[in-house]
């Protein structure tokens, strides 16, 4: 009996053990694979956007020297200081002057592919600095969308040939286009800019923050510190938890049916967009705010109560200041989500073509993600790069916000 091996020491067991270890390795590899896939997709997405987006920050431009001494423009500074100076210059024939010099430099074929509104750039330069009218100045003017596509090796063969020959003569080149960050939407991909949408986003986010933050924090304080355990409190809690999970498009329907019914004249205004997003962001702030408030140890409250602080003083002197970093972290994350939100804003009409940056909270506006959506629908190849560039701008803002949230979390994280 004594030489019979225990069942865990037999050769069969060891063979099984080998298999089990193999299964263990396979399982582990599958887990690693899942993670690598996710990270890989993220990297691929970012690289694709980055690669396409670089082109979006550039545009094909042609150098045109203009000799203003021959142009016959009256360079009266008083006239140029008027708000309608652009119209005055147009009336004085600036567009044909630009065409003339373009033809001289680029030939008829090339001049035909200067962007139609290029003279406006010249006009803006003149208004900024009337002194250039006394000599010759060289302008880098955007090419037409077709020619730009040709330079990228797309479009019709003629265009590609023309672009190649102009480029070889050094007349056409791809230049960094920082104006993309300063202009608004346009129909020509060479003329579009992101500033209009960016400003719309900022105005919208201001409204969202001003509404969602105070209401969210106050609701969190009430629920965590004061609310009695009863049906009303339960109802509020259930509402908040459900609102946090309601699809964003439903908030758009709410904004459309309620806000636009109350303010019928404010279609596509940042005010309405911000209010709609505020309702969506508020539950996020409440939930993260409650967690931050819960993390403040009860002993602090006891200490304050024991020296005779009233419940309101306890909260506003002690609990809120201590919970604030946590609340801010949650708020920033909620705001970042709101900044990337598209669907509800489509519902309330923020999808219009808005060629001038919004003036205030009630003027028609669009926002970054909606601008991306609108450009993504354009067929013109130039818009693909512009869309990716807009996505880069949006992602940079989101990254900054998330970075700030992580910084706050690490900087103020307290172990009690």
């Amino acid at each position: 009996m004594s030489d019979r091996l225990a069942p865990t020491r037999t050769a069969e067991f060891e063979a099984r053990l080998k298999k089990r270890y193999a299964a263990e390795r396979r399982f582990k590899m599958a887990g690693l694979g899942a993670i690598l896939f996710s990270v890989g997709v993220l990297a691929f997405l970012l690289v694709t956007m980055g690669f396409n987006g670089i082109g979006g920050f550039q545009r094909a431009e042609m150098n045109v020297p203009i000799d203003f001494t021959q142009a016959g423009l009256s360079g009266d500074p008083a006239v140029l200081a008027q708000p309608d100076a652009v119209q005055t210059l147009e009336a004085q024939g600036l567009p044909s002057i630009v065409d003339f010099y373009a033809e001289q430099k680029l030939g008829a074929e090339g001049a035909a592919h200067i962007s139609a509104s290029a003279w406006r750039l010249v006009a803006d330069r003149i208004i900024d600095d009337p002194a250039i009218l006394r000599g010759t100045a060289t302008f880098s003017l955007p090419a037409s969308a077709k020619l730009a596509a040709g330079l990228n090796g797309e479009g019709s063969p003629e265009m590609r040939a023309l672009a190649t020959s102009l480029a070889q003569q050094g007349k056409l080149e791809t230049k960094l286009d920082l104006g993309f960050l300063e202009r608004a939407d346009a129909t020509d991909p060479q003329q579009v800019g992101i500033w209009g949408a960016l400003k719309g986003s900022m105005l919208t986010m201001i409204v969202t923050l001003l509404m969602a933050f105070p209401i969210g924090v106050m609701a969190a304080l009430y629920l965590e510190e004061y609310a009695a355990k009863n049906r009303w409190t339960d109802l509020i809690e259930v509402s908040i938890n459900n609102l946090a999970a309601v699809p964003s498009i439903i908030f758009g329907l709410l904004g459309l049916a309620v806000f636009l019914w109350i303010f019928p004249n404010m279609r596509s205004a940042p005010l309405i967009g911000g209010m709609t997003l505020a309702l969506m962001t508020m539950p996020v702030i409440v939930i993260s705010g409650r967690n931050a408030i819960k993390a403040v140890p009860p002993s602090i409250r006891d200490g304050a109560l024991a020296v005779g602080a009233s419940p309101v003083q306890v909260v506003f002197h002690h609990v809120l200041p201590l919970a604030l970093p946590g609340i801010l972290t949650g708020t920033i994350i909620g705001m970042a989500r709101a900044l990337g939100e598209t669907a509800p804003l489509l519902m309330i009409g923020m999808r219009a073509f808005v060629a001038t940056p919004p003036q205030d909270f009630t003027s028609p506006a669009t926002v970054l993600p909606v601008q991306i959506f609108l450009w993504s629908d354009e067929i013109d190849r130039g818009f693909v790069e512009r869309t990716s560039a807009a996505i880069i701008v949006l992602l940079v803002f989101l990254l900054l916000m998330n970075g700030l949230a992580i910084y706050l979390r690490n900087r103020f994280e307290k172990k009690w």
Partner: protein
Amino acid sequence: MSPAILLVLALGLGLAGWLAARARAWTFRRDSANGRIAALPVYHAWYVALWIVVPVLLFVGLWSVIAPQLISQSVLASPAASDLPAFGFQRDAILSEARSVASGSAKAVFNEAANGLVEPYRAAISRYNLIGVLATLIIAFLAGAWAFLRIKPDFTARTRVEKAVMTILLLASLVAILTTLGIVVSLVFETIRFFGMVSPLDFLFGTQWGPDPMSNPNSPDGSRYGAIPLFWGTIYIGAVIAMIVAIPLGLMSAIYLTQYANPTLRKWIKPALEVLAGVPTVVYGYFAALTVAPAIRDAAFAVGITNASSESALAAGLVMGVMIIPFVSSMADDSIAAVPQAMRDGSLAMGATTSETIRKVLVPAALPGIVAGVMLAVSRAIGETMIVVMAAGAAANLTGNPLEAMTTVTFQIVAMLTGEGSFDHPATLSAFALGFVLFMVTLGLNFIALRVVKRFREAYE
């Protein structure tokens, strides 16, 4: 513009009241025998400031809603308005043009008919602005004076201010209920209007979807409002394709991160997953439309399927699945972490390998939580809009072929509300009915999931 000015005015008046009341309370304090009064001066200050700001804010809120109506009415009553077309878009367009010129947001009118209305508008706006400012001042003064006269050395200002604070906090928490109510009421209201035109049976059980926003709104063709293809597309993309991607990958990621990964890897991978979750849906949509869909179509061509469409359910579903991975992963992470360490130790102590412990002990124990997480993920996927709008297509196909275009509930909501139809048309209203269905389904999924999670947590506490 005017409400903003009134707002600043309200805050300025509140500050003035605050300073005046505090100064007065300090004089009480100086004059009192022992240098003490019933409440700190700062509470007297807040008491008066609240009495000024709250009524003024209520007035400003009300005024910003009714003032535009009063302005339009007075413009319409002016003689210049008598030549306006009786009703319809043209009339509204002329009015809004005149208004934007009068308020300075536009320089000139395109429509000559608006020219005559600019002056009446300008006059009405300035008249009602003046009335608004005057009313604000009067309200602030009356309320402030009343509050100011009430503060006395023995006035318990702190208790009153704190009561007001508590009331404001309570009201803030009621916003959540109001929002829910607002959603339900507006969806139900428009859905009932829709069902007044199209039979609910046609809507819920019909298999043909193709509303025509240009058709006669008074005699809608019920057979064009069958939402079954939309429901099918939604479920097929959101609950089938996306989940086939998201569940295994999310679950395995969570398992690897919680059970195998060393802390350094964890430190880097978790934020990366958070970034993946933070990428806006419009970016995913663009990615799906620009990169994934063409790749799938090309792959289909390569294996000999020639009828693959460039917008496919598969592209939208795959990208949506990727978007959901971090969500499933973090839910699974929480559920596995909630399983007591003792269970894991018990299994390991018998000589089970890590993977055996995970598969036979941890995952079964965490299953309720994981299932609830998947339900939440599904509810998020079927409510997702931008990916399907950009990549799934508009055709309401009732098919099982993932390479064909399919449409979803959210896609049609966007399509119906951003189209040309008027607000009274059944095609437009159908969006609210679809929204209502979506709301109820996501609500139901969340409700069940949260209950399951709660019971699961309690079981291990």
